[in-house]
């Protein structure tokens, strides 16, 4: 067990809080958009627009995620003593969420690359280049992977939210407050 203990601050630093909440809103927005564009919208034109929006903001989120991971692993490393099962579970859940976010963004990009319909991801007037050749079967596979990762991530997000509320209302500690103030 790591004997190096560090008392957690009363609040996380502003960049960390900002990146956390921007990510939260962004990811939940993309998930809502994804569900709506796939399952709810029936008009071809609007559906197409929503897909392009999902692709553009998904790609942009990839950039946000890189900034966030850089902040987390380079400027924000801390060693905190192991405080038991919940602590380990939190670390695993956090790392899994980040891993799934990365693979979600990557699989979304792969879907557009494999598409046999040439519709590049459009970001601020720039077309993101495709690094893969169109392949219908691979596209279908990538779509399935993208969806599975999205639902797995959603499950972890729900665990994450549940844990934050558990800390706040049951354990009555500063875990949630740290990210709010």
């Amino acid at each position, binding site marked *: 067990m790591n004997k190096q203990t560090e008392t957690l601050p009363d609040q996380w630093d502003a960049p960390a809080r900002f990146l956390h909440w921007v990510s939260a809103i962004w990811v939940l927005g993309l998930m809502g958009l994804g569900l709506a564009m796939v399952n709810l919208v*029936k*008009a*071809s*034109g*609007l*559906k*197409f*627009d929503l897909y*392009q929006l999902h692709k553009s903001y998904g790609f942009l989120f990839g950039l946000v995620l890189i900034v966030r991971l850089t902040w987390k692993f380079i400027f924000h490393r801390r060693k905190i003593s192991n405080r038991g099962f919940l602590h380990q579970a939190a670390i695993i859940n956090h790392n899994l969420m980040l891993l799934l976010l990365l693979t979600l963004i990557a699989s979304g990009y792969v879907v557009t690359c494999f598409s*046999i*319909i*040439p*519709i590049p991801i459009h970001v601020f007037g720039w077309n993101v280049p495709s690094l893969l050749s169109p392949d*219908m079967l691979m596209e279908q596979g990538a779509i399935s992977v993208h969806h599975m990762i999205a639902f797995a991530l959603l499950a972890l997000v729900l665990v994450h939210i549940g844990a934050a509320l558990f800390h706040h209302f049951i354990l009555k500690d500063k875990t949630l407050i740290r990210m709010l103030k």
Partner: protein
Amino acid sequence: MLRLRIIISCLVVGLTLNAASGRSNWVIDPKKTRISFAVDATGWPKTKGVFHDFEGNISVDFEKPKQSRVMFKVRTGSVDVGSDLLASLIRSSAFFNSEQHSEAVFVSTGIEKTSAKTVHITGNMTLLGVTHSESFDVFVDAGLADKGRLGYKATGSFERSKYGMVTGIPVIADVVDLEITTEQYEQAN
């Protein structure tokens, strides 16, 4: 293409109503004309669109319908599918390539009466610089004949791959359905 059907309709009405003999010029009323298409795709709702910029010339010979002529031009850049982004894609080189081939043209080569209210029209359709024979069925609504107008509904379909438009096949269907509804009136000589 659709305009061709409109023309055919005129012929049908002429045949049906025993209109005056000789060649007549029928003008399309653009406000009453809708040239639309629909394309199916796997896992995607049917994409429906219209063209806003088109023109047509119709010369109908009621005594000798086979000598009647129909010509229609559609400016492919005027396509409207309810999304500027999707329209841009359809106008791009992946589909219409409107920059290099701005028009789709249909010129009739034969018109045949199939019933009292329907005709079958055949003609050459040029798309992406490629020409093939296509045919359409036209239903003629003679209800407006008293007002000197004829209503038409023309339907047909074609395989876009024949014209070199192969993008997205088979996810996006090869067959494109066309429908034209229009009203026409006889132009005074």
